[in-house]
């Protein structure tokens, strides 16, 4: 079953801006889906329509089979949203904000209190439950928005850039928690500008640009499309000159750092065999740029240069 089905969805704002130009999208139940795109591509508009904050111009949206046109209440009951902008009631306490959200979903009394404690503890905010939300740090506010979105235990959770401005330690703990709730069955759609985040968390990816979906496939499939990879090797010993390797372009960056460009027809084993033959020992290896980032830039750039539309 699809957690989200979008058919021919379009949105034209009153000022004439056509933010979505008939997109189709299917997200399977249980998936962890990355929706990527440059600023102004239409991601937030699409999320706004799914969550009933933006009126669509045309098309259909179904959440777990419930149409937002004919079964809005059922569709909304399945959904949790962490918006891009911080939109917390700045004068209310952390505990009240999450309790109120539970109430809006018809969850009251003991059950609301149990869930509020559960999610505030999970997001490490329980000790701040009586504090006014505006006294929280940026990262805490982001976590509070996640706790708020989870309190109705949604089957589909949409996170619109949830880790923007969050330090790396908290970001990683948020990733772990999101993976945990995804493993427990919650479908997650994530938009982010940290492509490393999308690559490590998501199994499917959709790339949206200028209101159209230009890629919608498995993460592994999309990464296989990457024609060239640039690797940075840290060497055990200094090397004066870059070795000549068959099928690889090489360049010395520093005495102990070698840059290797690898085509799709070559594999890493082959590279190491050749380096062994040159008596070069490799201590560690990393990609010069995030693979997904490279691909993303290529897809978006390619589309802009050819004028191709999906």
């Amino acid at each position, binding site marked *: 079953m699809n957690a989200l089905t979008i058919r021919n969805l379009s949105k034209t704002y009153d000022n004439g801006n056509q933010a979505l130009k008939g997109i189709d999208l299917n997200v399977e139940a249980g998936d962890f889906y990355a929706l990527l795109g440059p600023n102004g591509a239409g991601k937030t508009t699409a999320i706004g329509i799914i969550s009933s*904050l933006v009126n669509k111009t045309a098309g259909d949206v179904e959440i777990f089979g419930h149409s937002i046109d004919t079964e809005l209440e059922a569709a909304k009951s399945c959904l949790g949203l962490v918006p891009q902008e911080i*939109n917390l009631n700045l*004068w209310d306490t952390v505990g009240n904000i999450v309790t*109120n959200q539970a109430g809006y979903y018809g969850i009251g009394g003991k059950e609301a209190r149990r869930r509020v404690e559960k999610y505030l503890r999970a997001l490490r905010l329980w000790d701040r439950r009586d504090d006014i939300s505006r006294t929280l740090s940026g990262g805490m506010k982001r976590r509070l928005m996640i706790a708020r979105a989870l309190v109705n235990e949604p089957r589909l959770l949409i996170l619109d850039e949830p880790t923007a401005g969050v330090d790396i330690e908290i970001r990683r703990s948020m990733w772990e928690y999101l993976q945990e709730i995804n493993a427990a069955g919650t479908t997650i759609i994530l938009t982010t500008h940290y492509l490393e985040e999308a690559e490590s968390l998501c199994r499917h990816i959709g790339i949206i640009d200028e209101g159209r979906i230009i890629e919608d496939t498995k993460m592994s499939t999309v990464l296989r499309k990457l024609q060239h990879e640039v690797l940075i090797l840290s060497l055990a010993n200094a090397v004066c000159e870059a070795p000549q390797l068959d099928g690889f372009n090489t360049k010395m960056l520093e005495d102990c750092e070698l840059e290797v460009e690898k085509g799709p027809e070559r594999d890493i084993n082959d590279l190491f065999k050749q380096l062994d033959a040159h008596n070069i020992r490799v201590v560690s290896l990393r990609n010069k740029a995030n693979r997904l980032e490279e691909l993303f830039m290529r897809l978006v750039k390619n589309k802009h240069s050819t004028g191709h539309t999906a």
Partner: protein
Amino acid sequence: MNVALNLVAVTTIIRKEFIRVLRIWIQTIVPPAITMTLYFIIFGNLIGRRIGTMEGFDYMQYIAPGLIMMSVITNSYGNVVSSFFGAKFIGHVDEMLISPMSNGAIIIGHVAGGVLRGLLVGGLVTVIALFFTRLEVAHPLVMVSIVLLSSIVFSLAGFINAVFAKKFDDISIVPTFVLTPLTYLGGVFYSISMLPEFWQNVSKANPILYMVNAFRYGILGTSDISIMHAYTILIGFIVLLFSACVFLMRRGVGIRE
């Protein structure tokens, strides 16, 4: 529609509104108490002594119901307009809009919040009035029903104002340029029988006149207008304004792009 869900949602909004009123008591409760005390001292005590009686009542006694109603109206209106516009402005109105609660529940919850503050302040002003004059309730049911219906009308009006408001200035325009003049000209301080016939007829186009007079009838047993007219107008306004609120919410005016 899931009735149980909407009941919990409405209760949640009312609780949230009540907490808000109490949290900012210095803005919500103290100012009307001070203003009304000044009205009672200046108009009721100092000027009122020279005026003498009106419609057979001591002037202080005569203006007390009007002043109570005035505080109920302005506070009911003010609570809804500031709370809902604040939620729109900061963005946490989205918490309600993405949830499965109905548009009706959002409206009813906020209106109930407005009524709660209106009655709370109205009760406080009544207590203050008792320090200055004696009030015997002639028709308790009329008094309670009129204050409740008037509070609902102005809470609904405040909701519509908040829906259309785009900046903070927009939430003070109606209270300043419409609500206050209509309240002052609504027979709070005088009986319209004192006006020339033409102005009496003009005054009858002012809905607040009916609310003030019906409430005065509930307390003092005297009124310039027919009580049935007051009920008809109040119920008519409630139906009209509630329908307008539902229509605006359904269309997403001012809240959905």
